[in-house]
């Protein structure tokens, strides 16, 4: 524990560093599988095929990079917003170890083909059980810290943190219910259309409780900190909070439009998805209005650039998402490349940009130093932005093109193209996407180098002071 400030910050350092490691793994695997799609010769069965690597990419990204850094910043933010030190730094240390063990186990077991097949819930039951233990340890520590707080009211970030803790727990437990056959094999407890409905209730709310509420908690904390100006409206944040966590849980079946899941479930999902625009954009407006009179900081303060671009992508994401949730549009673009384009705007644009800002803000403070290089941070920004835009835009075009081809008919009503004829037209887009991924990876490496040098500089200064 850092005695000088009274906050348990060493553990934050651990989570930040390990989340960056897993983030690099996620992007490396992502770039590799984007090449596999374009060049099938790059599949090396049995372990290194697209089918086995794609779950490693998503799990490393969502759980390694995402959850890892959320753990770091939940611990960082909660202590500060409660003006008290972490309830149990010892428990947090156990949590860090367990976190790394779980992610490493996930990568190894998935490569070996131990896979439940349910998206973002692929881990077999022994590993999934460890995830539950990990989450309980984490949740107890955060909740107890909030309970013993020295600040009467809870800032909006704490609301989102608490919702995340309970939301993820409910989702994960229900969707991972399984009938074990052996240590390495289990079957889902639900069957057919039921299993599908449970899965996408989980899947879409993983988007809510992992890729929305935690980054919002982080955004609401670090935007005011970076600009030096309080958030525009705390009360708007509160109203949006309740609306958001209420409505999200109804929307899972928009992943199942036109499938055998009951129509009324699909219709509710569609309606609530459109309604979600309101609370989502409340957060966007809260960000923008906070910048009133501060827009010059976009030029001067690289942190603000990351955060405001991040919330802007969140705004785009929450307009595009509901439009995809409408039956007619879904009929057109679902199952095409449009969807990966959409997802990566959210993960690379929204979540990661906000996390980059949070890391740039906290690491120099944790190591009592300055960031190594602001110009490098700017290079990082433009590289990841370019990489992500190339990825998303090419995938949207590819998706629309394939959808149009799949729907093309001859005058006699028969279909004009076979599936494979629509697919082979995607190769040029897949090459572009891989290029976008490489550019993004380059940006990430610049970021990692910058943070590495910042930490090294901080340690050198500390050593010099002691001497």
């Amino acid at each position, binding site marked *: 524990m850092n005695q000088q*400030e*009274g*906050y348990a910050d060493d553990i934050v350092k651990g989570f930040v560093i390990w989340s960056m490691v897993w983030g690099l793994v996620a992007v490396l695997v992502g770039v590799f599988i984007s090449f596999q799609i374009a060049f099938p010769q790059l599949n090396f069965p049995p372990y290194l095929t697209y089918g086995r690597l794609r779950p490693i990419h998503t799990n490393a990204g969502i759980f390694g990079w995402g959850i890892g850094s959320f753990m770091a910043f939940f611990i960082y933010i909660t*202590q*500060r*917003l409660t*003006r*008290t*030190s972490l309830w149990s730094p010892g428990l947090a240390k156990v949590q860090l170890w367990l976190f790394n063990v779980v992610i490493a186990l996930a990568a190894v077991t998935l490569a070996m083909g131990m896979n439940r097949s349910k998206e973002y819930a692929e881990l077999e039951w022994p590993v999934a059980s460890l995830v539950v233990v990990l989450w309980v340890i984490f949740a107890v520590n955060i909740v107890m810290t909030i309970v*013993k*707080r*020295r*600040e*009467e*009211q*809870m*800032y*909006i*970030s704490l609301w989102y943190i608490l919702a995340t803790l309970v939301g993820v727990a409910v989702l994960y437990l229900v969707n991972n219910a399984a009938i074990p056959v052996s240590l390495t094999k289990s079957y889902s407890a639900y069957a057919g259309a039921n299993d599908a409905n449970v899965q996408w209730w989980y899947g879409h709310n993983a988007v809510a409780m992992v890729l929305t509420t935690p980054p919002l908690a982080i955004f609401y*904390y670090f935007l*005011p*900190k970076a600009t*030096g100006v*309080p*958030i525009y*409206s*705390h*009360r708007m944040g*509160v*109203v949006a909070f*309740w*609306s958001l966590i209420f409505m999200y849980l109804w929307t899972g079946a928009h992943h199942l439009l036109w499938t055998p899941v009951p129509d009324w479930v699909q219709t509710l999902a569609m309606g609530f998805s459109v309604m979600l625009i309101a609370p989502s954009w409340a957060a966007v407006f809260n960000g923008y209005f906070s910048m009133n009179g501060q827009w010059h900081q976009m030029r001067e303060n690289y942190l603000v650039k990351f955060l405001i671009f991040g919330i802007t992508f969140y705004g785009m994401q929450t307009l595009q998402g509901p439009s995809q949730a409408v039956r007619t549009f879904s009929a057109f673009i679902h199952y095409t490349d449009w969807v990966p384009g959409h997802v990566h705007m959210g993960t690379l644009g929204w979540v990661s940009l906000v996390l980059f800002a949070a890391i740039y803000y906290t690491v120099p403070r944790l190591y009592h130093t300055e960031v190594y290089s602001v110009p490098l941070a700017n290079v990082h920004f433009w590289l990841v932005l370019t990489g992500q835009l190339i990825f998303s835009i090419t995938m949207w075009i590819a998706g629309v093109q394939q959808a149009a081809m799949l729907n093309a008919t001859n005058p006699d009503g028969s279909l004009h193209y076979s599936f494979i004829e629509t697919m082979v037209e995607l190769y040029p887009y897949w090459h572009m996407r891989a290029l976008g991924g490489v550019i993004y990876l380059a940006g990430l490496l610049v970021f990692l180098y910058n943070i590495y040098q910042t930490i090294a500089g901080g340690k050198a200064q500390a050593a010099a002071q002691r001497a």
Partner: protein
Amino acid sequence: MDSASIYYLGVTLLLFLVFAAIVARTYSRKQKAKGEQPKYRMMDDDYPSDEKKGGRDVRRK
């Protein structure tokens, strides 16, 4: 209108009322100062609370 539709309408109205109540409470005059207070207090939290900083341990209250 069958009974199911009336029931759904009732639930919808109820949910809307809950929402209206949350908005009314959050934006009531009484709440204005209090509701916006955390956003100012969070600006100054780089050190844990001690007496001089004005933080207080709510448990001891």
